[in-house]
């Protein structure tokens, strides 16, 4: 299995390189990073423009620029930002933590909800519970995440107004002046996470619970479930030990495949709740034609997605003895 993991990572490297190359080209051609400078009023002196051109490596041919960026990476240099005082690497590191904790917690919440609701729906197929869960699932599938997030935010504000004090945080990933002490700090962060987590989790939950229901139904109709029942095992044991255990296997793949979509969802959620996370970082980068910011973001997210898929594949092999990686 270790050999499999190593080989998978080895295969991922060229994919990563190719996609970084394509995005680098697209990003570089998609706008002039100096736009903001050029249209400034009064116009800056030509020396400033020349200096910026050189600092942003715009005087170097495109291919060479890519090479400079790539080789810089090995020295820990993510390249120059349009904002001259911004160090992309350290900025990204702090934002990465902020975004990843949102994504991971939201995924966990969505998975738990999806498994519980999906299994209950499948076991009580065509019952009122099933129909309601199905309808709620479809509703969230059809709901634009930003619309729901804005609504949640508004409810949070109204709730705070009604109570007369700040109970639910609606803006930012943490307080501007974080409280002293480790635990109050954790509480502060958790308080800020509640609404964004809900809005991000519910979108994935909708698709996953439908999936889990279908998967559970398929398993419950299989011969080995019938045999397990014929052995005289209780309904509960059959459902959990034989049904759920097998129905969870395909969900690992789906979860991993959806990670990229969740990262997209996090970009939107962060925008609504005004978090200074990776989403805000890359959107600003795109708006200001900040090629290296976009590249750094892409590199980090693509790596996370690839690693996550690898973990899912390994987990799949652990859950299903029929799968052997050699």
């Amino acid at each position, binding site marked *: 299995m270790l050999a499999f993991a190593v080989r998978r990572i080895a295969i991922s490297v060229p*994919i990563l390189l*190719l*996609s970084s190359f394509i*995005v680098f080209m*697209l*990003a570089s*051609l*998609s*706008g002039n990073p100096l736009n903001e400078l050029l249209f400034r009023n009064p116009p800056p002196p030509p020396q400033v423009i020349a200096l910026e051109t050189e600092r942003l490596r715009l005087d170097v041919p495109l291919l060479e620029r890519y090479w400079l960026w790539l080789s810089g990476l090995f020295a820990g240099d993510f390249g120059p930002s349009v904002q001259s005082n911004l160090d992309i690497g350290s900025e990204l590191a702090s934002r990465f933590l902020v975004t990843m904790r949102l994504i991971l917690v939201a995924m966990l919440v969505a998975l738990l909800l999806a498994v519980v609701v999906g299994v209950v729906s499948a076991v009580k*197929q*065509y019952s009122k519970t099933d129909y309601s869960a199905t309808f709620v699932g*479809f*509703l969230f*599938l*059809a*709901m*634009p*995440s*930003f*619309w729901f997030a*804005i*609504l949640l935010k*508004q409810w949070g*504000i109204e709730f705070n107004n009604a109570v007369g004090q700040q109970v639910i945080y609606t803006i930012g990933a943490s307080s501007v002046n974080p409280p002293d002490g480790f635990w109050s700090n954790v509480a502060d962060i958790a308080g800020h996470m509640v609404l964004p987590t809900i809005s991000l989790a519910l979108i994935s939950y909708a698709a996953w619970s439908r999936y889990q229901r279908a998967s559970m139904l398929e398993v419950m109709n299989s011969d080995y479930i019938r045999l397990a029942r014929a052995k005289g095992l209780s309904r509960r044991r059959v459902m959990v030990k034989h049904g759920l255990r097998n129905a969870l296997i395909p969900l690992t793949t789906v979860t991993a*495949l959806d990670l*990229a*979509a969740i*990262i*997209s*969802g996090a*970009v*939107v959620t962060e*925008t*609504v709740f005004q978090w200074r996370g990776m989403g805000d970082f*890359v*959107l600003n980068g*795109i*708006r200001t034609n900040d090629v290296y910011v*976009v590249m750094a*973001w*892409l590199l980090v*997210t*693509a790596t996370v*997605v*690839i690693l996550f*898929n690898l973990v899912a594949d390994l987990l799949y092999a652990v859950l299903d003895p029929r799968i052997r990686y050699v």
Partner: protein
Amino acid sequence: MSDERTRVAEPGSAPTAGPSTPAPDREFTVAERSQFQLVLRRFRQHRLAVVSLGVLVALVLLAYVGGALWRHDFGEFTPDNSQPPSWEHPFGTDAQGKDQFAQVLRGTQISLQIAVLVALFSTVVGTVWGAVAGYFGGLVDTVMMRISDLILTLPLLVVAAMLAHRFGGSWWLISLVIAGLYWAYVSRVSRGVVLSLREKEFIEAAEAMGAGDVRIILRHLVPNALGSIIVNATILIAVAILLETALSYLGFGVRPPDTSLGLLVSEAQTALTTRPWLFYFPGLFIILIALTINFIGDGLRDALDPQQTKVRA
């Protein structure tokens, strides 16, 4: 089935001997129904899908016919600023006096146009891509699917934002940008379908009879994969609507003076306390469109997937 056989003897017709009820099916018979009739019958049993289809058709008519007939144009500045919903302005007006009903209808048009174009374009490209990869297998498959995987590892919204920032603005360019990424998703589905079909006996039989690649793909694979492809394309419309609105919300989609449902929500988010109608109506339209399309897709899946025979309690 049996009632269409019971015919009342018409007055004046020759009296017939024996019982008037014809003999029932003595042997196992399958009533002859065309594939289309079967699909239609199964679709009609999915009540939610039928209702959804009605609602969606009504919405489309409202957006296009209603939009053209409505007394206000979406770009028109009426003298009424920030009016709550009324007879004159059913969805109210915004701070500049624009009629929100006209805006929402226009937004619906644009969002639907984008979604349909995305679904069409990515379905055609993705299906062919996946079918070719799945059919030929081997190196062709590996290379083609690696390219799809590559696109799938990227968070589409952000890449779409980047591309739209460069090319964006008009609705059809945004469609192309979204479709240019989404086909990879379709290609996975179509490859999966083709791979499972390839194992089926009737494909082997066709091969054994000496049918060529093109004939097998066109006459055997595509018709059999059509069900999954249509279902997928339907669902894709809903997905594309959501992606487009998110893109517009972030400021990388449709730009003023034109509008889309996502842009309308985006413009209204700061006015949620003062002019909530501006926020709710476009949002509800997005939900309504995506919801009905998903239900229709679900109904189609039931109707087009013959393996799925449901025993209803």
